[in-house]
């Protein structure tokens, strides 16, 4: 084991909870269950050393109660210099004991799907992480010993919460700091502690929550890379993914409340892209298009799609755009419709509203080998790669390439929208 060199110079410690897991992310963790799990996590340490932990009731439910160890569920930047990073990655941290205001404070990443007592894939066992973090809050550093709850990596649920006992390494560490406990309950179930309800059933891969359903079902009307963030439009709503690929919220935003100037009742956006020459954002809906400056449509819009001068090979004016993007490889704008695409040079377009496709277009979508001919939308992303989205899958064509040896589709839901991976297909022995 390893000690931080810091400890509390008292053995009666107090704790409080300042925020709880978001119900939308961790639906199986009501506040009282969290309180009980944290109580048992403290008990793991007080069973091994002469420590006592008393919970301070928060005034008016969750108001700012003090105490030595203050527990918070926070996401991303939370003003302590140790930002969280969305689901996975870092799960939690705690400050060592001391006289600083933050000493003992314990923060859990609210973007994790917290759970208890089970083995639901993709979720994190709160009890396991809480015992580890409270070890830090009491003065222990990371241990390389196996088994030890103070190993830095998440090891999965530790088992029966109510009968959990520390490993020898952890017991010796805490006893080095606070001495050996004589008498009193040594593990086992304390009759005074509240009972935990049965663990929730494993998280279903297709929950009945309609928002989950929508987000994880794919079939987006449009996808756009706008100023480094990716927007997934579907119906009257959109989801927004930041540059670090974290989701701004699991809940969708209303298009009408963010993009001001689209017609009332807009329930389907065909394609969206950001024009690089002036950073305006172009929306295509049916046979019209809008140009936005930031989040507000510019005056004079909508305009007819015929401004773009797109005609099919048969000479028919195009009345709908299915996908639009700027290919980072050459900076040109590409619009797709009906299995054909047109290329535009918008480097000097500015406010001009009439334009013509480059000569030689339209061309067949089949030139983009290995991707669906009728895609939902396309973006340039990362190192200039082209991402093609269709239903709940996406394909990546590496920078500048039209024909790549292998283009493997991946899951939009899992990779972009924080949905659980579907269970692997089980193969049944053939009789």
């Amino acid at each position: 084991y390893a000690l931080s060199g810091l400890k509390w110079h008292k053995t009666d410690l107090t704790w409080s909870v300042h925020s709880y897991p978001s119900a939308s992310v961790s639906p199986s963790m009501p506040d009282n269950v969290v309180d009980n799990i944290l109580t048992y996590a403290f008990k793991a340490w007080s069973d091994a050393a002469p420590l006592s932990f008393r919970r301070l009731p928060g005034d008016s439910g969750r108001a700012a109660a003090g105490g030595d160890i203050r527990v918070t569920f926070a996401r991303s930047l939370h003003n302590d210099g140790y930002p969280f990073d969305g689901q996975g990655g870092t799960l939690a941290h705690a400050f060592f004991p001391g006289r600083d205001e933050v000493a003992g404070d314990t923060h859990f990443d609210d973007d994790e799907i917290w759970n208890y007592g089970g083995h639901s894939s993709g979720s994190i066992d709160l009890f396991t992480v809480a015992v580890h973090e409270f070890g830090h809050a009491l003065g222990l550093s990371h241990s390389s010993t196996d088994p030890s709850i103070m190993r830095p990596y998440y090891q999965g649920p530790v088992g029966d919460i109510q009968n959990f006992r520390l490993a020898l390494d952890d017991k010796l560490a805490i006893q080095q700091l606070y001495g050996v406990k004589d008498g009193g309950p040594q593990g086992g179930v304390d009759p005074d502690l509240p009972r935990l309800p049965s663990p929730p059933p494993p998280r279903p891969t297709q929950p009945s929550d309609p928002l989950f359903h929508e987000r994880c079902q794919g079939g987006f009307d449009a996808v756009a890379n706008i100023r480094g963030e990716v927007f997934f439009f579907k119906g009257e709503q959109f989801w927004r993914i930041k540059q670090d690929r974290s989701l701004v919220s699991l809940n969708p935003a209303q298009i009408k409340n963010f993009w001001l100037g689209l017609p009332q009742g807009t329930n389907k956006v065909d394609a969206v892209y950001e024009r690089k020459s002036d950073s305006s954002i172009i929306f295509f809906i049916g046979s019209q298009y809008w140009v936005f400056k930031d989040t507000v449509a510019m005056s004079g819009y909508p305009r007819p799609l015929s401004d773009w001068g797109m005609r099919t090979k048969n000479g028919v004016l195009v009345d709908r755009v299915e996908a639009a993007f700027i290919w980072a490889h050459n900076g040109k704008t590409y619009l797709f419709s009906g299995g054909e695409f047109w290329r535009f040079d918008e480097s000097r377009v500015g406010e001009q509203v009439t334009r013509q496709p480059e000569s030689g277009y339209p061309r067949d979508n089949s030139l983009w080998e290995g991707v669906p001919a009728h895609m939902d939308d396309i973006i340039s992303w990362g190192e200039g790669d082209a991402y093609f989205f269709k239903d709940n899958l996406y394909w990546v064509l590496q920078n500048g390439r039209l024909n790549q040896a292998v283009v493997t589709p991946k899951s939009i839901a899992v990779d972009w929208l924080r949905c659980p991976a579907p269970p692997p297909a089980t193969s049944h022995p053939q009789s």
Partner: protein
Amino acid sequence: AVPAHYSTAVDWLSRYGYLAPPDPRTSQLQTKDGIEKAIRVMQRFGGVHETGVLDSETLKLMSTPRCSLPDIVGNENMLRRKRRRKR
């Protein structure tokens, strides 16, 4: 060209205390030897094969969810803490 996972791994090793963070005044660069040593310590601490290279087992461990606190609180960190206390 340095592979993307290499710079990510160096960042990871610095964050969790295996590599001294670069000094902004001297723009200290990490040596190949120093990085290999750091990888070895990380592998030993994490209980995987000690190879000194970013093999798949090591990269997998680096991508395992974990606590934000560093594994090694070395001299650099201790010194910084002392300096802060003195100030």
